[in-house]
C-alpha cells in the first residue's frame, strides 16, 4: 500500500475516534457475473455508499472493504471510512470462482484492520462479512475458509451473510460459512434493495449501545431475498 494511503488510514483513526463498524464485502467477479449482473452490483454498491454517507452517525463509523474473487482473490478496496472513498467500479474479470480465496483474503484484511484499531485505541463493533457468489467454488479452499468464519462467528467476533446470486449458486456450499445465518438467495439481480437494507442495518448497528443485542431487520430481508 502506498505511503500516502497508509498515512490516511492511520490518520483517520486518530482524527475520528468514533467506534467503527467494519464491513467486508466479498464479491464474485467470475466470468458468469459479467454484463448485467456486474452492472447491477456496481449500482447497488454505489447506492450503499450514498446511503451511508448521508447518515451522519454511520458516515463516521462504517468502514468497508471490498474483495473480489475470480481466479484469484483481489483487494479492490481496503478498509476505509466511506466518506473518503472514490467510487468503486468492480469489473468481472472472467475465469473461475475462487470463493475460499476471497473469503480468506477478506478475513486477513479484517484482522489487519482490527490490529490497527487496537493500536490506535479505537473501539469497534462486531464486524460483518457479506459474501456474494453466483456459482460453485472451483477450488477447495472454501472448506477451510468456511470453518474459519464459523469459528469466528461462534466466538462472537463476526457476523456472516452468505448470499447466493441466481440459480447456479448452491445454498449448501454457502451454508458452510455461517451457522447462525441461513444463506439467502437474492431475488433476481436485486442488488439495490439488498444494499439499501444493508445500509439501514448498518446505520442502526452504528447507533446501538455496546453490548446491546440488535435484532436484524428480518422484515426488510424479505424485500430482497427469496424466502
Amino acid at each position, binding site marked *: 500500500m502506498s505511503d500516502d494511503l497508509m498515512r490516511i488510514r492511520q490518520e483517520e483513526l486518530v*482524527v475520528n475516534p468514533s467506534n467503527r463498524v467494519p464491513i467486508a464485502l466479498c464479491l464474485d467477479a467470475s466470468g458468469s457475473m459479467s454484463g448485467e449482473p456486474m452492472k447491477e452490483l456496481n449500482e447497488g454498491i454505489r447506492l450503499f455508499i450514498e446511503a451511508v454517507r448521508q447518515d451522519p452517525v454511520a458516515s463516521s463509523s462504517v468502514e468497508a472493504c471490498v474483495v473480489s474473487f475470480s481466479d484469484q482473490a483481489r483487494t479492490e478496496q481496503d478498509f476505509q471510512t466511506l466518506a473518503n472513498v472514490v467510487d468503486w467500479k468492480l469489473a468481472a474479470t472472467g475465469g473461475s470462482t475462487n470463493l475460499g480465496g476471497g473469503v480468506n483474503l477478506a478475513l486477513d484484511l479484517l484482522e489487519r484492520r482490527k490490529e490497527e484499531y487496537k493500536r490506535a485505541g479505537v473501539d469497534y463493533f462486531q464486524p460483518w462479512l457479506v459474501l456474494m457468489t453466483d456459482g460453485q467454488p472451483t477450488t477447495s479452499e472454501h472448506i477451510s475458509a468456511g470453518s474459519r468464519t464459523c469459528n469466528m462467528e461462534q466466538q462472537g467476533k463476526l457476523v456472516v451473510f452468505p448470499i447466493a446470486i441466481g440459480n447456479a449458486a448452491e445454498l449448501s456450499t454457502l451454508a458452510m460459512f455461517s451457522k447462525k445465518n441461513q444463506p439467502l438467495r437474492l431475488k433476481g439481480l436485486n442488488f439495490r434493495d439488498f444494499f439499501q437494507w444493508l445500509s439501514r442495518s448498518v446505520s442502526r448497528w452504528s447507533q446501538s449501545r455496546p453490548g446491546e443485542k440488535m435484532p436484524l431487520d428480518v422484515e426488510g430481508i424479505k424485500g430482497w431475498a427469496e424466502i
Partner: protein
Amino acid sequence: MQNGSRLDKALAKYVIVLDTCFAMQESFDAFLQNYKPVLQRNHVLVPYRVVQELSRILDLRDDRQHVAEFTLLLLETATKEGTAEYRRDPEDDRVINDAVISRVVEGLLPRRDVLVLTHDSNLSSYLYTKTQQQSFRVKDLIVAGVNSEGELFAWGEHRQASNGRRDEGARMRRDPRRRVRSASGGPAPFALTNKLASSLGTPLSSRQAVREGDALFLKDGSRVTLRRVLATGGEGTIYELDDESSLCKVYRQDKLTLDRQEKIELMLTRTVSDPMICWPRAAVYDSDKVFRGFIMPRALGKPVPLGHSLFLPAAFLKARPSWTRLNSARLAMTILQKIKRLHDMNVLIGDINPQNILMEDEKTIYLVDCDSYQIEGYPCSVGTVNFTAPEIQGSDFRHFLRTKEHELFSVATLLFMIFMPGKSPYSHQGGEDGVTNIRKMHFPYALGERRPVAAPAGPWRLCWSHLPFTMKEAFNQCFHEDHRNEKRVSIDRWALLLQEYLQVLEKRSMVFHGPARQVGYDLSILPENYRRVEKDGEIRPQWPIDTSTDRERMVRQLVADANSAAYANHAGSDSANTAGSSYAGTTLTTQTRSVSARASGWTTGTSTPATATTHTSPPFSTGIASTGKKGSSADWKWIIGFLLTIAVSGIVGLVWYFWDPIVEFFTTLFAIAFWAAIICGALLLFSKK
C-alpha cells in the same frame, strides 16, 4: 367536636414534632399561647434543623427574613417557658431538609404516637402514605396545621394545603417552568430501604388494547386522548397528547405489573417541577380502572441523546463546530446538578447511559425514562454494561437494589465520556468484551509518575492530558484497580472539581484554541497536542524540533507500527509487541540519555521522534524509567565485564607471581590493563550494535 378532642388528646399524649413551615405561620404565636398549659406538660420537639433553616432564611435577607427572625424569637421564649425543646441528633446533620422531619417521625412511629405540626402538603401526604404502607404495626400519626385563630386542626387525606398542589389536570396546563416550591425547599425525599417491594413481578391483567385515538383517564376521572405515536420500545409506546407539553407512556400489556403501578403512584406523591427531568405527572387508567401508564412532560425543541451527539465527536463537530471544552464542562455541570437533585430525594437513576440524557445545549438537558429510576423498594430493572460497576456486572437488575456507590461509578463513567468524547474508561467493545475489561479494572491512562499501560493509544491520550490533575486523580480513584474496594468520588466532590476546571477554562490566560503551540488547556475537544505546562521557566514536555503536532507524530508512529507488523508477518508477534511498548514508553528527545534513545530506536528499526509524555513531572526520570529494559541490560554488561577483567587478570597475575616474583609484578599490571582494554572494547562494540 370529635376532631377537636382527638387533637386535644394528641397534644397531651403524643410526641409533638414541629416543622419549619408551621412555625412560620402568622398564628404560631397565638398557637403557643392557646395551648401553653398543655404544652408545658408535653412540650413540642423542635428538631435543630428547623432552627438552622430559620437562620438560613434570615441570612438570605429576603421578604421572609422578618418572619424568620420573629419565629426564632418565639421558639427561644417557648423553650424558656418549657413549651418547646430543641432536639439535636448527630445523624440529622448528614441529611437535608425535610428528610430530618420524616426521619425523626419514622424513628418514633414504631414506639410512640406522633403529632406532626406542618403546613407542607408533600410531607403530609408522604407521612400518611408511609403509615399506610408499613408492613409492621405503627402507632397513630396525626398531621396537623394551625388556622388563623391559632387553633389546631388535623389535615385529612384530602387536605387543602396553603400551597395546594392537587388537581393533576390543572397542573398539566400550567406552565411547567413556574417553580412550585414547598415552604422548606424541594420535595420530600423518599425512604431509604434495602428491601425489595413485595409486589415485584405481580402482573396486572388488562382487558383492553390501547391504540392511537383511544382515551385514557386520570385518577380524578378526566379524559386524555392518545394522539400520534411518538416512539415504541420494549416496554411500551409513547403517545403525543392534545397538550403539546406532555407525552403519555402506555406500557405493553404483557409488561404491566403491580410494582410499576405502585412505583408511578409513589412518584406522584412528589412534585418535581424541574422541566428537564421528565418526572411522571399523572397516572392513566383505562375505563376498567386498570393502571396503564403515565403522563410526563415533553422535552422542548429537538434535543438529541448524548450517545448520538457529543459521544460521536467527529460527526458532532461537523454539526456544531463552535463547541469547545468549556461547553463540555458546563454541560457536565448541568447534568451533575440534575443528578444531585434526584439523589437528594433518595432516587437513584440506576441506568445512567447516553441514550437517556438528551441534550439541547450546554445548559439544557433532559433526563428521560424516569420510570426506570430506583425508588425505595422498586429497583431499576435495566442497566448498560459500560456504566455498570464491576462488582455488580452480571446481576439480575430486576431483583436488585443498587447503592449510591454503584451509581457513582456510572456518574464517573458519564463524566469521563464527556471529556474523552465518547470513549469509555475501559475500552474495547466489539470483538473483545467490555465486561472482562471492567471486571479486571484495567484503567490504562497515565497519572503522575505512572505511565500509560498498553492499549489504547491514540487521540485519547491527547484528550486525557488536557484534564487537570485533580480530575485525573478522581477518575483514577473510580476506575483503577488499585482503588478497587474504596469509596468512589461523590457528586459534591465532582461538582467542586468541575467548578475549579470551569474557572480555569474561563481564564483567557490559561486556554487557547486549536493546534497552535501554546501552554495551557486546548479548548478543542479533540486536541492535537498534549498539554504543555510551564515549570521553572521551562515548557514541559518540550516541543519537538520539527513543526509537527503530537497528533501527526502519533499517526507516523501508527504507520510505522503497521508497517513493522506487516514485516513480522503476524500481528501478534514480537515486533508488534515491542512496537507497542516502545510507543507506550517513549521518551523526550533532548533531555534523555543517549543510550536510552538509541536503545528505543534499535527496537523499532526506525528513528522515531519520541512522542511527548502526557504529564508534567520531570522528563528526565521518566526517560530512564520507561526504557528501563534496554538501559539496565547494557549496565549489567559493564559490571560483568569489569568483574571478569579483574578475575582473569588476577588469576594470570597469581600464576606469574609464583613463577617469577620480581619482574612479573609489572607484567601483571600490563596484563590487567591489556585484558581490561580488550574486554571493555568488546563489550562496547557489542552494546553499540
